[in-house]
C-alpha cells in the first residue's frame, strides 16, 4: 500500500532524510510525504518517527495503487 502524509511546515531536505523510503514535496506551509508502507507496524512506526521529530501530522491517507 502507498500512503500520503501531510505535515505542518516546510521540512528541509536534511530532515526529510529521516524518511529515506519516502518522497517529499513542499506545498504552502506544509510538506507532503508519500511512498510505500509495508504493513501496519511500519505505519505506526512512521507515525512515531514523525512525532519523534516534532513534526505534526495533519492528515494521512492511503493512495490508490
Amino acid at each position, binding site marked *: 500500500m502507498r500512503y500520503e502524509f501531510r*505535515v505542518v*511546515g516546510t*521540512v528541509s531536505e*536534511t*530532515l526529510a*532524510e*529521516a524518511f529515506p523510503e519516502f518522497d517529499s514535496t513542499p506545498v504552502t*506551509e506544509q*510538506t507532503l510525504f508519500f511512498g510505500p508502507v509495508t504493513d501496519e507496524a511500519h505505519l505506526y512506526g512512521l507515525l512515531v518517527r514523525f512525532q519523534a521529530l*516534532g513534526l505534526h501530522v495533519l492528515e494521512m491517507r492511503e493512495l490508490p495503487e
Partner: protein
Amino acid sequence: MVNRTGPPPPGRRCLEPSGDPMLAARFAVPPLPRLRVHRPALLSRLTAGARGPLTLVNGPAGAGKTMLAAAWLAESPVPGPAVWLTVEPGDAPGAFWAYVLEAFDRHGVKLATAPGRPTRAAGVDRSFLVRIAEGLAESEQPVVLVLDQFDADCAREITDGLQFVLRNCAGGLRLVLTGRTDSLLPMHRYRAAGALAEIRNADLRFTVAETRLLLREHGLELSAEAVRVLADRTGGWAAGLRLCALAMQAGEDPEAFVREFAASRTTIADYLLTEVLDAQPPSTQELLLRASVTDPIHPDLADALTGRDDAAWTLARLARANAFLEQVDGSAWYRLHPLFAEVLHAHLRHRHPGLEPGLHRRAARWLAGTGRLTDAVAQAAAGGDWQFAAGLLVDRLAVDRLFTGLDCERLTRTFAAMPQGLPGAAPAVVAAACRLAGQDLDGCVGELRRADEYLDESAAPATRLSRALVGARAGRLSGDLAATGQAVADATRLLDDCPQLLPGRRPEIRALLLASQGAVELGAGRFDRAEARLSAAVEACDGPGTEQPLCEALGSLALVELVRGRLEQAAEHARGSLAVAERSALLPPRAAGIDHLVLAGVATEHDDLATARAELDLAAASAGPLPEPVAAAAAAVIRCRLATAAGDLEEALAEVRAPGAAAHARRLPRWAVDDLAIAESSAYLAHGDPGAALDLLEAAACDRPEHTVALARALLAAGHRRRAMDLLAELPADAPISTAGRVRACLVQAQGAAENGSAREARRFLRQALGQARPQELRRVFVESGPCVRRLLRQDPQLARAHPWLPSGGAGHPARPGRAALVAPVTEREVEVLCQAAQLLSTEEIAAALYLSVNTVKTHLKSVYRKLSVTRRGDAVRRARDLGLL
C-alpha cells in the same frame, strides 16, 4: 528519597541473563539538569497518582516526561522504595522481567519470595508472575516502579504480565509509566475504577509563565511579547523551548532570534536542530553525527567511530551544556535525546552518504571487544557485515543462543535478514541453527552440509565445535543417531582445543554434549549407558546459565527410567526437571514437555487415568512443535493406552500410527517402533480382535522380550494356548525386560494355566505377578489383562486381600480413593453380560451369545444398573470401565 544506583558492588558480576554485560544505564534514575523549571503542580499530581495502582505520563518526545518522573523521585514524598527501569523498545518478555528483577535488586528492594530468574526470551510462566505478585503483596511498603519509555510497541505478553501482577499484588505495587503512546494495558478498567492518574501532553505543555521561567533559568530575559510568541510557536514543547534557549544563548540577539523564528516557514524541529547543531564546532558535529549510529554512546565507542580521542571530553562538555545529551548516572554511558538522535541520523545520511554501514561495522567490533555479543551482532547486521555477525556467534560458541536464552528472539530476528548462501563456514553454521530454530530439519541438514564444504582439519576449533553442536541437536531431533553420535564425537575431541572452554567455564556445553550422548544411547536401546551419560550431564550442570540443559537432561533421564519401567525414579527426575523449570521461570518448549509426559506415563502404569490425562494435556501444552522422536513415540504409546482404556479403538489406532506417519523425515529407534506395535496390539485385544493383534505382531517381528510377551498374549487370546505357553517358557529368566513386561508375562501364563484347568498353577503365576508388581503398584497391567485375571483374583479372596493396592473390581472392593464405592460386588456372570453389552449387542443377542434366556439377561442388567447406580446401558458400560470391571 531515591536510592541512586552507583557502580555495582565489587565482586558482583554485572551480567545480563544472556551472559552479556548489563547496561547500568537502564536502572539509573536520569540526573536532573542543572537548569530547570520547578513544576510543583505536576509533581503533586504524580504523588496523588501513586496512591493508586497506576499513573500514566504520556506525551510526545521531548515533552519532559522522563524529567518529570525523575524530579518526582528526587524531590517529592514517594510512598515507598522507588525502582527505576528504562524500557527498551523490542525487549522480549523474558528479558523485560529479568531487567525488572535486576532493577529491584539494584534499588535495594528485596522480595519476600524469590521468584527465580527468567532465562528464556519468549516469556515467563504464570507461576513466576504469581511469585512476584506475592512477594510484592508481602512487602511492608508498596514498591513504586517507574517504567520509563513504556510504549505500545512492548510485547503483548509484557503488558499482560504487568497487568496480572498489578491486579494480584494487593496494593504492593504502584506503577508509573511514561511513554509516547498509550500502552496496551486495559486503561478503561482502571479509569472506570478511578484508579488511574493521567498526565497527558496538554498538562505537560509549558505555559507562558513557565516559558518565562525556563528562559530566565538560561539567563535570558525577553520581552513579554517574545515569550508569548515562543510559547505559542513551540506549543509549549519542552524540548523545543530548551533548544531555543540554547540557540539564543549562542546567538547575539535573543529578540532577533525570536523574530526570525516566528517568521520562519520551516518546521520548528528542523529549524532548531540545524541551529543547535550548527552552533557546535565542526569536530563536535562530526562526533555527534558518527555516534548517532549507536544508542547509548560510550566515549571509547565514539572514539572508535571518529578515529580521534577527544570523545570523553566533548561528550562531558555537551552533557554539561544540558541539551540533547545526558550522562547516564553511575556509568560512563551517554544517551542522546531521541529527537536529536533521529535528526543526527538523517544528517549523517545526508552529509556522508554511504558512511553509515562502515560505522555500524566499527561499532560492532568495539561492542564485541567488550563482550556485548548481542549488541555487536545487531550492529554488524545493520552494517551488512554478516560474516562478522555470524563469525562472532560461532567463535564465542554462542550458537546456542539462537535456541535458548533471553536474546534468542532478537538474534533469530536479526539473522532472519541474512542473505542465503553466504560463503564460509560460520554463516552456514548460523543459517543451519536458524533453520533448526524454525523447525526446518531438512533446511538445517542442507546448511550443515554446506558448512562441511568449508570445514577441514585446518579450520578453527571453535567453528568446528559450533558446527558439531548444531549437528548434534539436529541429529537428536531428526532421530538420526549416527549423525548425532558423529557430531558428539567430533565435539568432544574439539573441547580441549577451544581456549573459550577453560575448566570451569561454559559448563552448559559439556552438559549438552553428555545429554546428546545419552540421547544416542537411549535411541540404541542401551538404557543403562544412557542413564550413566545423562546423570553425568546433570552433574555437569552447576552454576548459572545451566538451567536449560539441566532441565533437558533431567527430562531425558526421566524418560529413560520410564522406558526401563523404573517408575519411582522416573517420577522423581520428572519432578526435578519441573522444579528447575519453575525456579528459573523457563518456559516450554523445553524437551517437548517431556517431564509431564513421563508423569503421565507413571500415572498410566498406576492406573490413575485422570491424572495421566491431565499430565498429557500439560505435556501437549508445553510441547514444542518438534519433540524428539523417542518422546513423540512414548507420548503416542501413552495416548493409545488411554484411548484403549476409554474403549475408543479408532482413536487408539490413530494415536499409535501418528509417529510412524511422520517418520519419513525422522527416524524412530527400533525399540520405540516395537513399543508402538505392542500398544496397537493391546488396543486390538481390548477390542476383542485377537486376529488383528496377532497379524500385527507377527508382521513386526522383533526379538525383544516385551514383543515375545505381547505375542504370547495375542496367541492365547486367539486360542493358540500351547504356542503361547511354549513361547513364554522359552523366555530366559534373566531376559532384559521391564517389570511391567515380566508381570504381564506371568499374567498370560496364569491365564493359560487357568484355561488348561490347572488352577494351582494359575494361582502360582498370579501370586508371582502380584509380588513383582507390588513395589511399584503396577495396576494398569492387571486391568489391561482382562476379565480372566480378575476372575482368578476373585477366586482367591485371601490373595486379593493381601494386595490392597490392586485396582477396584479386582476383588470387588474399591481400593482407590475419590471414586464412589460399589453398592455391592458385581458378579462374574454380570460382568460377562456387561462385556457383551459393551460390544453393543442387543439383549436378545446377549442372551443367544451366553446361552441364557432374555429374561435372565434383563435381570442381570438390572442388578448391574443398581450396583453401579446408573439407569442406562451406556452409562453402565462407561462406569464399569472406569471401575476397571471391563
